[in-house]
């Protein structure tokens, strides 16, 4: 039996890696990572001036920033673009150029095509994420002079896996649209619209949305309504991959955090102060436990989108034109 799957993955990978699109994406990402990591290391030097080195300094390269925009946040907002750029024309371009029916006239299973394309895309995403992290590690070693310990290594490893899953979710979305829509422009626009809605519109509007839901429910005292707002926000956040991802990576890459909910939401100023003063980093396993539900949820969404794409692709009619 010919392994059509392997041949397609090989071809897709070669196509991606030799395309200008990949090159440009990689250049943008390298540029942004460099800028962000230099800013992060700058602010770290200021913050750590005269202080005793505490644990997990290395992870600060990913989370701290002078301008309030860290690398972790950057990937949360703009990482999906990698997935969208890779996938938005994967099926419909082949359909339009007639190569899809040529491919399917060869002795391979039909699902080899869609599986191969997806897996090759995930491979490219993996390559990009790993290269970003390597770059930051290298610059971090050079600029700040801290080397990651074993636990930091594992944290970064888990962070990389979650990031790959997150970007692959958007790859699945764009492949879904390129299967549904004949026109490449339409599928690109549809995926970008969805990305903007879930990554910008929803996260920024979530508080207003929760507030309006709570206030329309009638008069409540302050404490009760605040609790309700938080609960509704949490439920709404499950609909946005961006927020899921932020939650899923929160305690992994930032072990000083104890919960995915921002501290300001939980308690008053004095409590916050005392918590901060006595806060020690969470052990890796505890950090993982806090974010595990978000990771599974992220994986589940990705799989569901891919299954929908798979079913549509398998049932579509192949016509000559």
């Amino acid at each position, binding site marked *: 039996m010919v392994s059509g799957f392997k041949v397609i993955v090989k071809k897709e990978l070669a196509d991606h890696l030799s395309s200008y699109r990949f090159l440009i994406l990689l250049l943008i990402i390298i540029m942004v990572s460099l800028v962000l990591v230099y800013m992060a290391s700058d602010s770290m030097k200021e913050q750590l001036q005269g202080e005793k080195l505490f644990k997990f300094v290395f992870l600060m390269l990913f989370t701290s920033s002078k301008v309030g925009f860290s690398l972790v946040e950057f990937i949360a907002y703009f990482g999906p673009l990698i997935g969208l750029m890779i996938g938005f024309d994967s099926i419909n371009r082949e359909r339009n150029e007639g190569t899809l029916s040529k491919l399917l*006239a060869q*002795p391979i299973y039909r699902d080899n095509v869609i599986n191969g394309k997806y897996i090759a895309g995930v491979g490219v995403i993996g390559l990009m994420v790993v290269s970003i992290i390597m770059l930051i590690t290298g610059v971090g070693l050079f600029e700040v002079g801290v080397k990651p310990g074993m636990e930091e290594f594992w944290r970064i490893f888990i962070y990389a896996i979650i990031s790959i899953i997150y970007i692959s979710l958007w790859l699945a979305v764009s492949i879904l649209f390129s299967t549904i829509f004949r026109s490449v422009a339409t599928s690109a626009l549809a995926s970008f619209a969805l990305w903007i809605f879930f990554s910008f519109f929803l996260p920024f509007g979530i508080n207003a949305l929760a507030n309006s839901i709570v206030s329309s429910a009638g008069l409540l005292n302050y404490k009760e309504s605040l609790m309700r707002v938080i609960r509704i926000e949490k439920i709404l956040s499950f609909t946005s991959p961006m927020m899921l991802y932020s939650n899923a990576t929160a305690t992994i890459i930032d072990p000083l955090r104890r919960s995915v909910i921002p501290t300001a939401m939980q308690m008053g100023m004095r409590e916050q102060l005392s918590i901060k003063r006595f806060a020690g980093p969470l052990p890796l396993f505890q950090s993982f436990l806090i974010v595990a539900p978000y990771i599974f949820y992220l994986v589940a969404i990705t799989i569901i989108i891919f299954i929908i794409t798979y079913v549509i692709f398998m049932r579509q009619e192949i016509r000559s034109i």
Partner: protein
Amino acid sequence: MVKENSRTESGEVEVKEKKIIEINGLTKRYNDFIAVDHITFSVFEGEIFGFLGPNGAGKTTTILMLLGLSEPTEGWAKVLGMDPLKEPLKIKRMTGYLQENMGFYRDLNAFQMLDFIAELNGITGEDKDRRINEALRSVGLLERAKKKIETYSRGMRQRLGIAEILLKAPKLAFLDEPTLGLDPDATNKMLGLIESLSRKNGMTVVLSTHMLDQAQKICDRFGIMINGRMIARGTIEELAGEKFNIDNKTYTLEEVYMKYFKEA
């Protein structure tokens, strides 16, 4: 089936001929549109079958159903003795398909394109490069093999399509309009190539074309399909016999075809 046999009663040899394709009542409906309407015919081993008919008559849809790429609404077909719905992979391994719009990856060169096709067909190792070069030489593309396909003329692309089929060396080839948009010289060369493919390698060819006078030269039998229905099939003599006086020996395929076309 009975009809097919009675048609070939004239020669003993023909009756014994092996059916490579057998189609019975094959139908394809898209919602309320009938693309292929209960067609029944057979193609015999080693022959070149001229699959004629105007654009949109359902020829391509029929071919897609024979390759298992499209599911028939009604009826059945057997290709190389197999059911396209049940064993599409086996059929596709032994069948070449040159589609109407060619469908090449523009960024690849001819060699890479054939290499990809070879790998999809499980042709590997040293054998692969030899067969690719051989196929490219046969269609006269060896010198241009390292140039990107997007720089190729229409004729060259069509020849590359034939090279794909040569590489695969199938028992059966479906050639959907391989002469479309070619100049007269290129058309003749293309049809010569197809003829030698069939005669030398014993390949059965189903050829769909609008070049009727050229088709007359190389095809053994014909099927005329109009509006989804197969309105006539057989050798040119058989087709003409139904419409012309027996004495009239000066008919061309074009005249015969137009006669059927106007009646349909």
